[in-house]
């Protein structure tokens, strides 16, 4: 009779027991190519585990709102004129929201971003009025943006004042500067044709379609190249079926949009608004910077875990400075678009609800206020949602005695929408955490 072997307490046996099932297939997930259903399953899993809804809520909102307004006000909302108008309304929100995203990714906030847009616009307008050549005037506006961004970044990163306080103060100061430049409430008209054209002129039909083909071919080409190169190097990659699906959706939606915009929608009015390729171009460049450069990776790292980033040798202060500067430069572009839209700059440019809508846009697109999570497309989609609301509401006019074209109901609806999205996000995250 042999004594029963006592359970061996050492780790070797514990580890050995756990091993065989996995041995030989290590990281197979990383080398085997995925199928379309894998990708969909991964998305659902990420949604369940991480509570990360991605672009889904924003896309759903866009579709639902379109149906809602389309059913209630088919003549005005679905008109070709309104469709063109929609893009020019959305552009400044989208641009500002993209800029704010950089700051939000760090878990910081910039409450002054709206008025810094106003200040840049006012500098541009006043210089143009003083007959300064356009390139010089633009340079001055961007230089001002650089200084404003660097100042906020310095206060936050080097002095250590919370960004909420710093930008609460700049929110007031930039507004003051805007008042000074516009001479206490004056309006500076913009006569410069190029600036006015951004929001008020359209690409010719031919150029519009050419742009469409260039963007579509570029997207499909780059996606394919990426997939093929990763395949060749034996690393897991998005399956071609998903690339094909995304490309098809993009081509169909984009094609319908360009087609609609190419039709006559008023007196001598047709074509894709000039601002549309500008916004798409910015979106591509900034997405690229965030997703494919070390700087972008470091921005996410600082937002995710500042201490870990610091220990990894990342200069946290410099990342903060640069994020505020990039945000400020984007504000400048948003300011120029705003100025172009109104043909003028006044003390309200970049004021009112401009900033809060931009931050709201980034947030309903899925960017976290706690930092570390968010993408540029989120900001653009969020901007499109807010623009759709503010485009559709005034067209509703009076329903049951409530005048939806007035500012009161508009603000209330915007506030409620933001709250709704934030709750959806919080709920999905809590559910994920509980799992």
């Amino acid at each position, binding site marked *: 009779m042999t004594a029963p072997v006592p359970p061996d*307490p*050492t*780790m*070797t046996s*514990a*580890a*050995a027991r*756990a*091993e065989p099932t*996995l*041995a*030989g297939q*290590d*990281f197979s*997930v*990383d080398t085997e190519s995925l199928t379309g259903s894998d990708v969909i399953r991964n998305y659902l899993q990420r949604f369940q*585990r*991480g509570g990360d809804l991605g672009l889904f809520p924003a896309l759903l909102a866009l579709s639902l709102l379109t149906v809602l307004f389309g059913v209630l006000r088919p003549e005005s909302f679905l008109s070709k004129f309104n469709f063109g108008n929609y893009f020019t309304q959305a552009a400044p929100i989208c641009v500002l929201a993209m800029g704010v995203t950089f700051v939000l990714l760090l878990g910081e906030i910039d409450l002054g971003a709206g008025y810094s847009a106003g200040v840049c616009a006012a500098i541009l307008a006043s210089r143009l009025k003083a007959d300064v050549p356009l390139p010089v005037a633009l340079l001055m506006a961007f230089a001002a943006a650089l200084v404003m961004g660097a100042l906020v970044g310095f206060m936050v990163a080097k002095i250590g004042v919370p960004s909420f306080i710093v930008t609460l103060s700049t929110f007031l100061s930039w507004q003051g500067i805007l008042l000074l430049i516009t001479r206490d409430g004056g309006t500076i008209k913009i006569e410069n044709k190029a600036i006015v054209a951004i929001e008020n002129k359209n690409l010719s039909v031919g150029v519009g379609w050419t742009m469409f083909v260039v963007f579509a071919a570029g997207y499909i080409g780059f996606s394919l190249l990426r997939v093929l*190169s*990763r395949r060749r*190097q034996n*690393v*897991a990659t998005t399956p071609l079926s998903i690339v094909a699906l995304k490309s098809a959706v993009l081509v169909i939606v984009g094609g319908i949009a360009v087609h609609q915009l190419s039709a006559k929608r008023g007196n001598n009015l047709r074509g894709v608004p000039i601002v549309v390729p500008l916004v798409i171009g910015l979106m591509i460049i900034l997405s690229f910077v965030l997703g*494919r*450069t*070390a700087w972008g*990776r*470091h921005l*996410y*790292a600082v*937002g*995710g*875990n500042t*201490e*870990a*980033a610091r*220990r*990894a*040798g*990342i200069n946290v202060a410099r990342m903060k400075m640069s994020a505020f500067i990039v945000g400020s430069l984007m504000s400048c572009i948003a300011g120029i678009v705003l100025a172009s839209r109104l043909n003028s700059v006044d003390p309200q440019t970049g004021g009112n609800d401009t900033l809060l809508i931009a931050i709201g846009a980034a947030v309903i697109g899925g960017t976290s206020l706690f930092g*570390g*999570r968010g993408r540029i497309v989120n900001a653009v989609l969020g901007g499109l949602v807010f623009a759709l609301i503010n485009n559709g509401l005034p067209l509703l006019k009076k329903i049951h005695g409530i005048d939806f074209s007035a500012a009161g109901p508009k603000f209330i609806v915007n506030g409620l929408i933001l709250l709704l999205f934030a709750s959806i996000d919080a709920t999905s995250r809590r559910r994920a955490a509980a799992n």
Partner: protein
Amino acid sequence: MNQIKIHEASEVSRTNMSEPVIDNPGTRTPLLELRGVNKTFGAVQVLHGVDLTVYPGEVVALVGDNGAGKTTLVKSITGIYTADSGEFFFNGAPSHIKSPKDASDLGIEVVYQDLALCDNLDVVGNMFLGREKLRNGLLDEVAMERLARETLAGLNVRTVKTVRQQVSGLSGGQRQTVAIAKAVLWNSKLVILDEPTAALGVAQTSQVLRLVRELADQGLGVVLISHNMNDVLEVADRVACLYLGRMAAIVDAKTSSREQIVELITSGRSAGIGLAHAEHVQI
């Protein structure tokens, strides 16, 4: 190709575990050698003439009660603190480590107890954080992904299934694994781990200890701070016992008992080894 390598490596690690790893430390150049390290904070002297040697291929456990000075010693090695006096030799050459960067330039990596991982990045992103591989100025994802995978596979890591997984979704043991793998990715020679298993369950602790052993078997020097005697006796080759800032004794793990080490930790001496008149040591 990869899979064959993995099997070979795991064979090696298993045989090594049952045999003594250090044959004769005296004849080789220590990887790290400290002589007479003193460190004071204001009026309080925390380290008193501490000596320590670490050879390549061995795990030295650094034990001692709370406040004995383990973390302070490690921080003096890695340049976060500068010692008041004492000699440092790395690979036999006198060295002056003044900043964490000096330490990492020499090949010393630290795995902090609080891990220092970014939850919102994936395994690859974390392993290469701050030292991303670039191609034409852009992130070279493919190269980083492969290198991350090879490093993990080379360490016989089987618990992390994909290197594209976000760290937020990993268990405590998997996170510790990533943190350790991150430390060895950079041709490091000495890896210091401050209580790597403190928050882990049984199975995950054994995973991490296996990894610690693997590092030493691949020729790295490892310093492991731990309060857990099971861990220490299981994985360490030698045990360095700090008592009130003094190195009470450095004993061979194979020939020492648990009671002996506990005694060294609590009173600074045990059956003829350790500090003389430990009870009268002043801080």
